[in-house]
């Protein structure tokens, strides 16, 4: 294989899918697509469904989800006579395409010289798919029908003609039909953009060379991924972690992963994970697989995104568990469930290659949704605040504060913008002190915010990580757990399910205070540089008790400056205490 052509073709394929991402982000009506890039585009092998290239602007959570969806749509199409030129298939059935009903996937074959060459596919988050609650997230859902309409894999376009009857059936069942039609048109148009790019590439290199390059590129990515995996010591690394509950029944849910590394092969075995729940804390197996690979990509970010990089991984995800939900389990809690998948992959890898893996991040998306009527305008509002939180520490550094979840890139709303839009006043938005796991490198602190209602409204919260804290690694300590408190009629109220609460009425003056977990610590806290302990103490990132107990520090002097205490540590006494307590 000519190495120049190979490298250039790789760049050109990435360019095609990047341009597809940007086209949709610009053209979509759904603000979730245009503002948080909740979409993905890729090119897939027509026979195997393997990812050839995927755009770099879509969300991480779709990393491998797209491939598993395409594989299942290939099977569905084969059962109905296979693909034909000009076809586009549509699906949003989460047991097939992963995530939730709002993520609609289109798949379209691309033909070269009358033969199928590859498949283009894209996904975009549509604002509303019907169901019991606008926007689709129904915290009390006990079956998927409450979450919206299901579109099984169907031929949406045949020989270039869109099935108008099918589109009418869909739009008749959603709340924003015009917007949906706009987003559908935009997603269909993007295929033309992709095709132009691919046609130009075929014209330049010829079908045979291009095909050979693609095969070689997948093989090279596999080589690259295997070169990293081969450095992981062989063995089986088992971890257990928990969800507090499913939002309906107060019982913990186990996530169990046994990760086996042999040579450069990986086996993710989730046997022992809790069975599907009544409430919406479930995800499909495609999403579970994708999040395992997202976690790997966070650890080995250099590996390109294509099917070759996914080849070394095998999965056992027993059907009927919360990580392989089946009809009719609700899946609306996907944003929180996916976090734990990342957590257990990090924790398993940390046993094998602690020098490369960060400790657990905050581990909960903790979405708070406040809705009601604005007292000034009378208009209905829905305000959505997703949790920021601390990242875990690593050998490289302390953890970041106010991170976005590993599978997302979505941001937190500006406080001032929020107050312009909603009758809610922020009391604070701050670093949550003393919440990062202790360690040689400290976990990032969580975040805390409080909002007071200025009129009657209703709040729902979907979080987790109250009963089971984000753990540290290599001797690092756990982070502070999630903490949700409401103040109703002047009295503090903690929801019975701790961080999950549904449609709690708020009156003017009532408030909600949320404090997200930090990230886990890395390494022995007694090995942390005392100058950094003193700096953290004086910055208020840790308190005196933590400095003394967790870090073995001895305070030489404390003086008040304004309303703050400024500390000086006694280096010799601290070292002596650390030595003594290590022996003791």
């Amino acid at each position, binding site marked *: 294989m000519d190495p120049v052509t190979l490298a250039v073709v790789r760049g050109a394929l990435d360019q095609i899918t990047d341009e597809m991402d940007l086209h949709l982000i610009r053209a979509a009506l759904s603000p979730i697509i245009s503002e948080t890039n909740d979409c993905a585009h890729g090119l897939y092998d027509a026979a195997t469904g393997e990812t050839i290239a995927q755009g770099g602007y879509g969300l991480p959570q779709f990393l491998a989800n797209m491939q598993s969806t395409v594989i299942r749509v290939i099977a569905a199409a084969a059962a109905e006579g296979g693909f034909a030129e000009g076809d586009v298939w549509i699906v949003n059935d989460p047991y097939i395409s992963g995530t939730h009903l709002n993520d609609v996937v289109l798949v379209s074959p691309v033909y070269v010289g009358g033969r199928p060459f590859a498949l283009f596919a894209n996904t975009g988050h549509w604002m509303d798919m019907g169901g019991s609650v606008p926007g689709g997230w129904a915290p009390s859902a006990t079956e998927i029908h409450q979450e919206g309409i299901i579109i099984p894999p169907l031929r949406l376009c045949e020989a270039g003609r869109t099935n108008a009857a099918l589109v009418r059936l869909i739009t008749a069942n959603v709340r924003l039909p015009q917007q949906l039609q706009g987003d559908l048109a935009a997603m269909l148009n993007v295929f033309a953009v992709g095709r132009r790019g691919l046609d130009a590439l075929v014209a330049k290199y010829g079908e045979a060379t291009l095909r050979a390059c693609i095969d070689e590129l997948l093989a090279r990515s596999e080589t690259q991924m295997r070169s990293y995996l081969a450095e992981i010591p062989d063995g089986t690394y088992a971890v257990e972690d928990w969800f507090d509950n499913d939002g309906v029944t107060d019982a913990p849910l186990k996530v169990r992963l046994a990760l086996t590394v042999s040579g450069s092969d990986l086996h993710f075995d989730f046997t022992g994970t809790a069975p599907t729940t009544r409430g919406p804390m479930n995800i499909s197996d495609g999403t579970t697989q994708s999040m395992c690979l997202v976690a790997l990509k966070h650890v080995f970010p250099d590996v390109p995104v294509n099917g070759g990089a996914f080849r070394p991984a095998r999965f056992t995800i027993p059907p009927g568990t919360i990580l392989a939900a089946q009809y009719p389990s609700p899946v609306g809690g996907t944003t929180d469930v996916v976090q734990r998948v990342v957590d257990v992959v990090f924790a398993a890898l940390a046993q094998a290659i602690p020098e490369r893996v960060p400790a657990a991040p905050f581990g909960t998306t903790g979405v708070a949704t406040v809705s009601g009527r604005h007292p000034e305008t009378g208009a209905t509002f829905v305000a959505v605040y997703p949790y920021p939180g601390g990242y875990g520490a690593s050998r490289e550094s302390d953890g970041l504060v106010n991170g976005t979840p590993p599978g997302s890139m979505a941001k937190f709303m500006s406080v*001032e913008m929020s107050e312009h839009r909603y009758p809610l006043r922020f009391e604070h938005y701050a*670093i949550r002190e003393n919440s990062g796991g202790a360690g040689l490198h400290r976990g990032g602190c969580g975040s805390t915010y409080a909002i007071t209602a200025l009129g009657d409204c209703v709040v729902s919260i979907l979080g987790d990580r109250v009963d089971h804290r984000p753990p540290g690694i290599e001797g690092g300590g756990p982070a502070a757990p999630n903490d949700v408190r409401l103040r109703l009629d002047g009295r503090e109220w903690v929801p019975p399910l701790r961080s999950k609460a549904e449609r709690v009425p708020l009156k003017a003056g009532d408030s909600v205070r949320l404090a997200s977990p930090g990230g886990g610590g890395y390494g022995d806290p007694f090995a942390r540089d005392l100058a950094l302990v003193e700096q953290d103490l004086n910055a*208020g990132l840790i308190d005196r008790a933590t400095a003394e107990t967790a870090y073995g520090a001895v305070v030489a002097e404390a003086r008040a400056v304004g309303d703050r205490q400024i500390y000086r540590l006694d280096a010799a006494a601290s070292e002596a205490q650390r030595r003594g307590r290590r022996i003791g």
Partner: protein
Amino acid sequence: MAGIVGIDVGGTFTDLYYSADGTTVDRVLKVPSTPDDPSRGLVDALAAAGIAPGAVDLILHGTTIATNAVIERKGARCALVTTKGFRDILELGRRDRQRMYGLTGVQHPLIPRADRFEVDERLDHQGRVVRPLDEDAVRALADVLAGLDVEAVVVALLHAYANPDHEERVRDILLSREPAWQVVTSASVVREYYEFERTSTAAVQGYLQPLVARYADNLSAKLTERGFRTQTLVMQSNGGLVPLAHLGSRAANIVRSGPAAGVMAAARLAAQAGFDNVITGDMGGTSYDVAVVVGGSPSVAETTELDFRVPLRLPMIDVHTIGAGGGSIAHLDRGGILQVGPESAGAVPGPACFGRGGTRPTVTDVNAVLARINAEHPIGLKHLDRLDIPAARRAIGDLGERLGLGVEETAEAILAIVNQRMAGRTRLLSVERGLDPRDFVLVAFGGAGPLHGAAIMREVGIRTMLIPPHPGVLCALGCAIADLRHDLSRTIERRAADLDAGTVASVLAEQRREGEARLVQSEARLVGTEVSHHAEMSYAGQIHTLRVPVEPGWGPERLVAAFHDAYRAEYGNTLGDIPVSVVSLKTAVLGRRAGTRPEAAREVAPSPARPSGRRPVYFGGWIDTAIYDRATLVPGATFTGPAILEQADTTTVIEPGMRARVDSFGNVLVEMA
């Protein structure tokens, strides 16, 4: 008119451009920068160019000191004062991370937490007082701050854009305690909502103000000492100028002014040559900067990330950067696939052919080995007479062995990859804006831009490339042709239907007065003033806004109609009856300097150019190639590729299958034959 000097002080080189009468080009010069005291490099450049104080009417100046101080965290120690409950806004950002993949790494806020303080007060989004300012607490805080070694205090209170009273009161109390503090209030820097972005912008201003003010004083003193009594104007990142004396108070506005100056110059030269739609490609030692000019106006970014979680919410010319430059290193990834950059060999060790111990192959080594640059006349290097070609061949050969390719083939492969990366970024930039790059002219400049422009043009499908007369010092030229400019903005955040024409007109009139007053204060000689207004508007609920030109006197209906027009132009449709919001109103006040308006192009009779020599150059094989001396090319000269065009500040490659001609301004226009 008398002479003008444009000087761009970059990280590596200080570039100078001198015109004795304001129109002709009389001197072009590149000297090493002096990062320990950048003002010295500037006066050195004046001396090296032999420019007498009497021959200069105006000095126009771009500088990287502000950019470097932020990136290297070398600004002033500042304290931050915020509303109670919000001192961490500066560090929190808006929930994100550095990269899409990889969760490690931390940030370094410009003002660390121990230096951030809170005062009890609260305004609502209309600027109404919810809790009054606790002035006793502010006085107590002033005593605490006096015990810290801070030079500047940044005051950033919630909703101060709607009502700056509390911020100003805090400022007055602090200044009465310690008049030496430089106090920056957020509303004085950005009159817009988004607390993180506004606080960050104010923090950048506070962080830079002492440093930039000292630099301005220092430079003034040095110029005066050498007899220059001329006015000095400094380039801002919005493409306009500000007087040196006001520089401290505009410190945040001069971040990344060098790249902005290059875009301004490129836009101006292209407009003069008859091209209004331009993509500018500036390639230097470590990076490739690309920007888009539509209808003669460079596109402007309202917010720019200077570093992770350091946004600057000031209008800046929208320049996108990737790590691809002459020093970019070629290597194989773990899959055995060839990659180029973003790692750079930097100034030390530099490319292998520079003879400073570099052993890894760079883009410059490739250009040397393929004889695209002249090994006998290295540009900008004082320490060697000729490039070390054997060292470059060794570096490339080592890599080639692992690929199974010869030296030339490997070199060409490296070129293909780096050109593809630049072409790809260029395409994405236009695609992001819904533009077809084939409708644009590429202006290639910077030390390395003209070496790669032909390939970028070919890859992107651009039909015409313009190489300016002095591409290596274009940023200095950009300073010399810019106008004075002030941008003012104010958050409105109301439904268009609820706004009356009087409110709109009074906000715009106030902005106009303020901008014009600043022009008067500048004491610059101006030949006119241009005022333009626009509104940032969106459908209610959208986060992204559109920039819509507006006029004083417009009421709700005109505003909404203008928004619909802009939306249709951008997206091809509108969203029907969804209400429209006016997020902010903005005014740009431009003070036009004499001689900054383009003159018209003249027709010139074509005549074949005469090569100054020939040498074998590698284009898929060694081809005997004509070499032209740029200094001898006259307007009308034509030649065809393959060709190499040599001049003091750069080298231009014309690929086989392309033809070139020199226009009446001395630009070389390259087209696909």
